[in-house]
């Protein structure tokens, strides 16, 4: 399935936007590592959906607008984005920080959202559930701690990064810190308003997530009671990357019922 990349301008902020596949519309909001390239899970999703993959402002090939100070700014940006592209009945899928953005969007307005899938989302804090600190992890730990299957980490670590990849990696890390350094990876006000999400919701979590432990899935379930929770066994923080087929199957299954 081939993807096209275009540049999309929303109120003066230019972002990259990849599109591929056919079917119901699916907006994928990427995590901290960005979405510079088309990845296997996107191909999987594109077999059942028309997949839209923007790079967030501040990430990859997208602009770094002056107004980007916090996660709320990103949420309002995506509300503008949905309006401008006049997207309706969209399935929004967000991973990690992208899952957090999806939740922040949905507490504000779900009028254009049919259903929501959050994959290991950041955004809330639960005392006693030990989180990882990726700002203190070494470059190697940052790769290893994402995966349950260390063979995947070995392969990634064996490939030297190109200068373009280093450029993107540093840009993404700087934006991540801008958005999520303090409070660390959450918004103290989000949990108060998650009940406003009334559309069908799905929480997917890797059983062995070292960024945010899978115990967070049950906490989200308390705050979004209608959510369906899928725990992916033998998997770390990024089920879409570590188990792309199973991930796509879970999303398709959820979408088919909603």
């Amino acid at each position, binding site marked *: 399935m081939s993807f096209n990349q275009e540049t999309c301008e929303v109120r003066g902020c230019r972002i990259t936007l990849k599109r591929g596949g056919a079917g119901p519309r699916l907006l994928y909001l990427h995590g901290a590592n960005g979405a510079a390239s088309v990845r296997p899970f996107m191909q999987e999703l594109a077999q059942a959906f028309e997949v839209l993959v923007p790079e967030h402002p501040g990430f990859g090939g997208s602009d770094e607008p002056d107004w980007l100070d916090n996660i709320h700014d990103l949420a309002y940006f995506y509300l503008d984005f949905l309006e401008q592209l006049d997207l309706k009945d969209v399935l929004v899928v967000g991973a990690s920080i992208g899952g957090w953005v999806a939740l922040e969007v949905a507490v504000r307005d779900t009028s254009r959202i049919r259903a929501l899938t959050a994959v290991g989302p950041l955004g809330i804090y639960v005392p006693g559930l030990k989180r990882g600190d990726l700002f*203190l*992890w*070494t470059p190697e730990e940052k790769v290893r701690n994402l995966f349950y299957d260390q063979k995947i980490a070995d392969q990634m670590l064996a490939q030297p990064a190109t200068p373009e990849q280093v*450029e993107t990696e540093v840009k993404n890390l*700087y934006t991540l810190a*801008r958005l999520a*350094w*303090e409070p660390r990876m959450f918004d103290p006000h989000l949990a108060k308003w998650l009940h406003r999400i009334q559309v069908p919701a799905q929480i997917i979590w890797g059983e062995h997530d070292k960024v945010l432990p899978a115990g967070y899935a049950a906490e989200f379930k308390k705050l979004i009671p209608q959510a369906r929770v899928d725990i992916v066994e033998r998997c770390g923080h990024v089920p879409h990357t570590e188990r792309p087929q199973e991930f796509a199957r879970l999303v398709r299954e959820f979408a088919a019922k909603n």
Partner: protein
Amino acid sequence: MNVMLFHLMPYADLDLEEADKYPHSWVTLPNRLYDPKKGHALYNRYLDEMEYAEEIGFDGVCVNEHHQTCYGMMPSPIVTASALARRTSRAKIAILGSALPLRAHPLTIAEEHAMIDNITGGRLISGFVRGIGCEYHAWGVNPTYSLARFNEAHDLIVRAWTEPGPFEFHGRHFHFEYVNVWPRPYQQPHPPVWIPSQGSRETIEFASHPSRKYTYLQTFSPIKAVAKQLQSYRDTAKRYGYTSTPAQLGWATPLYVGDTDESALAECAEHYENFRNRYLGKMPMEMLMPPGYTSRESAKAIVAAKSVAHEKAETARSNELGMMTCGSAKTVTERLIGYMKEIGFGNLLVMLQFGTLPANLTRRNMERFAEDVMPKLKQAAKELYGEAATS
């Protein structure tokens, strides 16, 4: 020539064997390794050392700010400076510096510095820093706003000291309806401001700007880097259209004076290596350079080099590089005068206690330096710069 004693107040009684079990000496080193009874003795020993510095002729004493580390027991240099304010009567007290971006309310710095300036009748030297990268982990402040918060807090503090209050201040990070600081500083228009740095283009441009002409201090660097950065300050001042004076340039360095070159090295080596390798050095890049703390160009270079923050230091080698200076009084005097002629600094900040250097060696180091090195250095500076050039 201003000769000042710089103290870090390290937790010298650290159980080194126990501390070696932990990967870092900053941020995450468990504070159960700090014993308050030993801390009590150390605080008082170090304050005594700084008071003694005035007694034996130093022009001033310097304190600084670091958080959550055995490297220094001064999370608040304000407390140290305050303790010294009434126990000294002649020496300058330099706060090098207060970490502006870490304060939620930067007017507290304007107030506290002004209080010390008033109590001491104008003996305060203010210093402003961003804090090192570790501070942003320890303190939680977002490092991507570090530079912006520094600049905004600096402008606010200087305006609070110099403009008639009350006035409004609404920046991007700090908001005040009534800026009207009591007390106003004793020194007018405000206390001198010194900027300690490891050397960056932006910092040198900021400090040397004609509207500021702040004294720039190169800290703990090989002598070649000291020469390069201080020359860069002079060049930048030229480009701004003025000639900087030696008083605008300073150098901070660990130093040890012994009876002979050999005994000096033998006495201080272990303690200096503890300072570098155990107190300062156990700091990974992720701590030293959190995202946003440096320009993205520097961050890319670091990713590419996959480097560690510090290589293991060895005292004899550090002495050769001029990272530190040790030797007999004669050797040390000759080297310092040589550096002064070559580099042209008007402020010398000597750290005469470092790492685990115990009280008796610290005292002897201070006395040898004050008696056998400092007078010759001051005489040489007078000949080189003229009587008034550095005061």
